[in-house]
């Protein structure tokens, strides 16, 4: 059976795969059942075995890294969907867990940055100056360079690769996403969790209807080549 490989951040991840507190509340709100995400709906519709490697909150470094980890399992006629995150994100090592932690804008409040378990005491000014540096458009080319080697591997191994993003600065004509993809999906009826729960939960990740709209959009684009 061919496989549908998904690489990306929270916009591609399956609900409940990671232990994020906000999704605990969402599950409770939905009486213990998460809705199907777009990748689950898509794999079922296409008849492909789903390999969703997306992890919430990851940077593009993690996404490319995960692709590299899995590349020797990707086979001819598999479909690979890469959902890039925001280019500004980067990663540092959390030495208490010896793992990477993603740094995102708006994520880091001073009281959290002082938490040594998160960033080993890396100063907030350090974070801000790097985030500021990463707002330069040159960082986008780093992702496009990764894509050229991914495209080469796609040719060699003969799998289909598809790119998309919610980051309008990164979006390109060869992506299946539109320039204002999130807004465009919302215009088509997609709802985030905040809207779906009538503001009872504050979460800008797509909920059930959001994932359904995104699934239909992707299915349409994959069917039309």
């Amino acid at each position: 059976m061919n496989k549908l490989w998904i690489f990306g951040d929270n916009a591609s991840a399956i609900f409940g795969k990671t232990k994020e507190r906000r999704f605990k509340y969402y599950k409770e709100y939905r009486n213990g059942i998460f809705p199907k995400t777009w990748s689950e709906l898509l794999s079922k519709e296409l008849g492909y075995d789903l390999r969703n490697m997306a992890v919430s909150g990851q940077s593009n470094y993690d996404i490319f890294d995960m692709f590299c980890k899995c590349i020797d399992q990707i086979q001819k006629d598999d479909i690979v969907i890469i959902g890039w995150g925001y280019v500004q994100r980067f990663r540092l090592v959390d030495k208490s867990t010896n793992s990477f932690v993603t740094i995102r804008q708006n994520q880091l409040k001073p009281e959290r940055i002082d938490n040594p378990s998160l960033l080993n005491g890396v100063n907030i000014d350090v974070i801000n100056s790097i985030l500021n540096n990463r707002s330069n458009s040159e960082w986008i080319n780093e992702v496009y360079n990764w894509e050229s080697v991914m495209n080469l591997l796609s040719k060699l191994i003969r799998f289909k690769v598809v790119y998309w993003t919610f980051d309008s600065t990164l979006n390109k004509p060869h992506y299946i996403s539109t320039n204002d993809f999130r807004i465009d999906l919302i215009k088509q009826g997609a709802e985030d969790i905040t809207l779906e729960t009538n503001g009872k939960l504050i979460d800008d990740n797509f909920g059930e209807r959001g994932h359904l709209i995104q699934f239909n959009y992707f299915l349409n684009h994959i069917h039309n080549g």
Partner: protein
Amino acid sequence: MNKLWVFGDSFSATNKKNNLENWRAQYKNWKGYTPLVWGDFLSLKIQHKLNNCAIGGIDNYTLFESIIDVIDTINENDIVIVGWSSALRFRLIDKNGGFTTIRPNDHNLDNKPFTRASLTNPIQFNDISINTINELVINRDNILFQYEVNRFIKIINLCLINKCRVIHWSPFIIQNKSMDIIKIDCLEYLEKIVDETNGYIKDNHYSENGHRVLSEYFYDLITKN
């Protein structure tokens, strides 16, 4: 004619260019001619046309990109030798809007903190303090950043596996212990410029004789498979 592709940093870069680093220009002056580097010696010995793409002071992200840029022009039976740089190095956008590599000169971060003097040109970045550089370098002193390079190595090998011979090594053998590279034992015994010039030029890059010995190592590696 088959090609020898060389990628790497100053330990692989050619002396045959106009805009030489100070130490390289001094050494060339001291020798009275343009000294050869290991890529020159090796290409002569194996009768491959040399494509030396190594860049002095490069970080591994830029190095990886320099390979991606030409990877589809590498032909069957070419030979590719990649000399990975220190995983401590990273890059930021400079005032001109391009990438500049940050290079810590000191290996012993605990005893000798990274100093402004060891920056290539500290005033070339917008809003980046020496403290930011220090904290990032210390954070990068972690095995995970070597594993990141291992993914690059995996991708390069996969792209070239059925095409040509690829050798990965690093002049930073002590810092890069966990990289998937060949460990060249003779590196620390290679003659350096400071040795050859009896301290007249205080530089620890390989002398022409050091480069010749290194080229013989690579020759043995290639011919003895």
